[in-house]
């Protein structure tokens, strides 16, 4: 399943790039994150709690940041698993300047298994949009805070 979209931010893309790869920022911005640690350069481990319908559960995940080309783009390889199943995602993030702000384009190829996969068609897209929305809102807040 492919999840893609774009999001406008007020700040410049250097700032955004930095924020998006800062473990502390991510830990506070990602919804339901209980733990987000850098275990090696550009490799993170996290524990995340999702409380939505049948994908409810605690997930442990690994995130690897690849192909970094600041401040334009990077790639994430994400793996997570919990009781309702697991996901693997390969995401590409592109940042471009637009007006005074930055436009972020993201595209992720998500593969699910377990209950998540079986109910995925009807649920996963919605859950992902909800979580991504919450994440952006929080990042936006932090951009505004830093910019201010």
């Amino acid at each position: 399943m492919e999840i893609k979209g774009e999001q406008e931010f007020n700040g410049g893309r250097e700032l955004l790039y930095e924020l998006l790869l800062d473990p502390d920022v991510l830990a506070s911005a990602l919804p339901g994150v209980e733990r987000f640690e850098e275990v090696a350069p550009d490799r993170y481990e996290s524990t995340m709690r999702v409380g939505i319908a049948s994908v409810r559960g605690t997930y442990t995940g690994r995130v690897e940041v690849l192909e970094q080309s600041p401040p334009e783009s990077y790639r994430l390889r994400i793996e997570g698993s919990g009781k309702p199943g697991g996901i693997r995602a390969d995401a590409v993030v592109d940042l471009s300047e637009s007006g005074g702000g930055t436009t972020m384009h993201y595209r992720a190829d998500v593969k699910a298994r377990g209950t998540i996969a079986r109910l995925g068609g009807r649920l996963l897209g919605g859950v992902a949009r909800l979580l991504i929305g919450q994440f952006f809102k929080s990042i936006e807040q932090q951009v505004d805070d830093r910019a201010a």
Partner: protein
Amino acid sequence: MTIADGPALPKLIGERVKRREDPRLIQGQATYVDDIKLPGMLHLAFKRSDIAHGVIKSIDTSAAAEMEGVELVITGAELAEHLGPMPIGTPFPAPDHFSVATDKVRYVGEPVAVVVAEDRYLARDAADAIEVEYEELPAVVDPEVAMEPGSATLHEGFERNIAVESYWGGTGVNPETAQPEDDSAVDAAFEEADVLVTQRMLNQRLAPNAMEPRGVVAQYETGREYLTVWSATQNPHILRTLVAAMMGLGEHQVRAVAPEVGGGFGCKINIYGEEYVAAALSRLAGAPVKWIEDRTEAFLTTTHGRDLLGYIDLAAKSDGTITGLKARIIADIGAYEVLLTAMIPTLTGLMMNGVYRLPVVRHELTEVFTNKTPTDAYRGAGRPEGLYFLERAVDMLARELDMDPAEIRRKNFVPADEFPFATQSGLVYDSGNYEPCLDKALEVADWQGMLAERDAARAEGRIVGVGLSFYVEVCGLGPSAVVPTGGWEHSGVTVERGGKVTATTGASPHGQGNETTFAQMLADHFSIPLEDITILHGDTSVVKQGIGTFGSRSQAVGGAALISAAGKAGDKMKQFAAALMTDQEVSPEDLVFEDGRIQVEGAPEVSKTFAEVADFAYVPVPLPPGMEPGVSEESFFEPENNTYPFGCHISMVEIDRETGEPRLLKMVAVDDCGNVINPLIVDGQVHGGLAQGIGQAMFEEVVYDEDGQPVTASFMDYVMPRAADLPAFELDNTVTPTPVNPLGAKGVGEAGTIGSTPCVVNAAVDALAPFGVTHIEMPLRPERLWRLIQENGGQS
């Protein structure tokens, strides 16, 4: 001498007798497997793979094992010390298949570990607490890709994932050598043809979905060294044979019981890993254990049906005479071969002769492993696939030649005077008379009226089509030469004291109503009231021997065994009756059963009541010379051949121009299943079959994504036909008895499923023919139909 002055008993065969099974079922008093509770019973839950293909790296059961109330947690590798690979029922080569995966998983849902716990919820919690680490392997999901060199393979020793390859052609197979005879005639037929039809068609994967999921209760009694297994199965005797073998026991140490069974449709023929595991873990845990499948597990692990890809070619003359058929079939059988997996697709080719005279046929079959749930029988099992391919192709030929679909079939029918008819595939159709059946269907449906109605609807801008199909199928599965488990059936008939009758049958029903039809047959045979008869089934400790219920064999094989045993019991009753009437010099041959009496034919005053004779049989003073006391007889009936019922289905479909949603407006079925014991039950069987055949045409499909993840694993995503989706069916029949059993009954369980699927698709194609459409893949999803309309700019 006394004469009972009872009223004359009506003959019951052929009557719409209401079912004797129903009072318990409509009052919630029936006992299905999940209703069984035993003292000290523990519950099983399976940890199942959530990936399609991978190597098991590690399994951590510690958290599960520590939970309070968990008795035992065992992995596949550990269980393999107690249970070997599972047996199959076909002669084809098959890879090892363990009840619980030992080193590799090959489909989502394959078990990797088992929990035994005090209650059902706790067992599930514990299974969830098991952690499994896999090294994932590429998933094989497309059978055509699976056969390409370089594709990942599921099983060692099965190159290119090919399980079975078969080929026959030309003028048939040489029975001596099993090799195709001269095949050049096929090529010649296609070179000389006036017209050719070529089509790739998918007969999609389906989930049988009996409303009762599978379930098993097993109780191993250590002191007695005796195992009892209750299971939602179609064939308890096969279960007994196989579970005994897996447990290292003799059949004398195992009792298998099919209690009330909530539907089968083929998916409860296979003996599953869970049944063996329950038996083994009952022995290990020293307690009875229960496992009940939930619906998601059913979608993942109960055998699927169909999933055949066909490349079909038909050659014909311009007058519509079919001159040749070529079929290349690829069967996606899933990850393993279970009981009958590899045999089912072979039935497709065998039956692709249909009702036609086909001068030459070439048939190629390849069965392929993929990372999906194993396939096995599903209502019709092989025949719906073959008849779908053939009846779609014949319909395309009719369209190509602008011929009426009824007339092109009539032109190619095997004529009535050519039966028994030997097909190109080596079968011998027992009996048939196709034209009257076609004519009756055209009349009942008012075919000409339907065509006019369609044309009028089109003139209004509606999208409406009519479809017709004519099928023949193979029923009454036997004889033993073609059924790996044995092709006979067994029955016992005991006349009890007081003249009541208890009969047993190995044809273990799960909705077919054998308790009623079999009692009707005995009531007529002995001329006693229906209420005086009990039919027992499903318990190997009561029913001495049996095969089971599949392949529409209950009546044609099981009923024949019953009548044979009843004949023997009746003969003995007549001998005892004659002994009671020695003063009147009566010989047993002169006696008949009439209204509760055994009497000299035509002389009711010379008689004894059935009850009197039965009482005498158990206290025979004096014992007639050469006789043993009592009346309890049994019979094994082995049919000499299968039976070949047939029928014609006609339908009308409308497609919504805006949404593409199809609606079945009319469904007519005229079937010929030979002699009918109970028309009410036969109608019910046809109705249910039609609904499933229509379900395949219009709604149902098991879908996997490119990683082998099933995405239709609940009733939210797998579309089952509901009441509002179906029209009222119009039924009629013709009667062409079979000569292969004394009843003349052919079997009807699968008929509706076989004819209706191509019939409805033919109607949908007819509806969209003005848009240039010649074929539509199943199911008839609104989106698919909408696109076909749009591709033509929405204009017909």
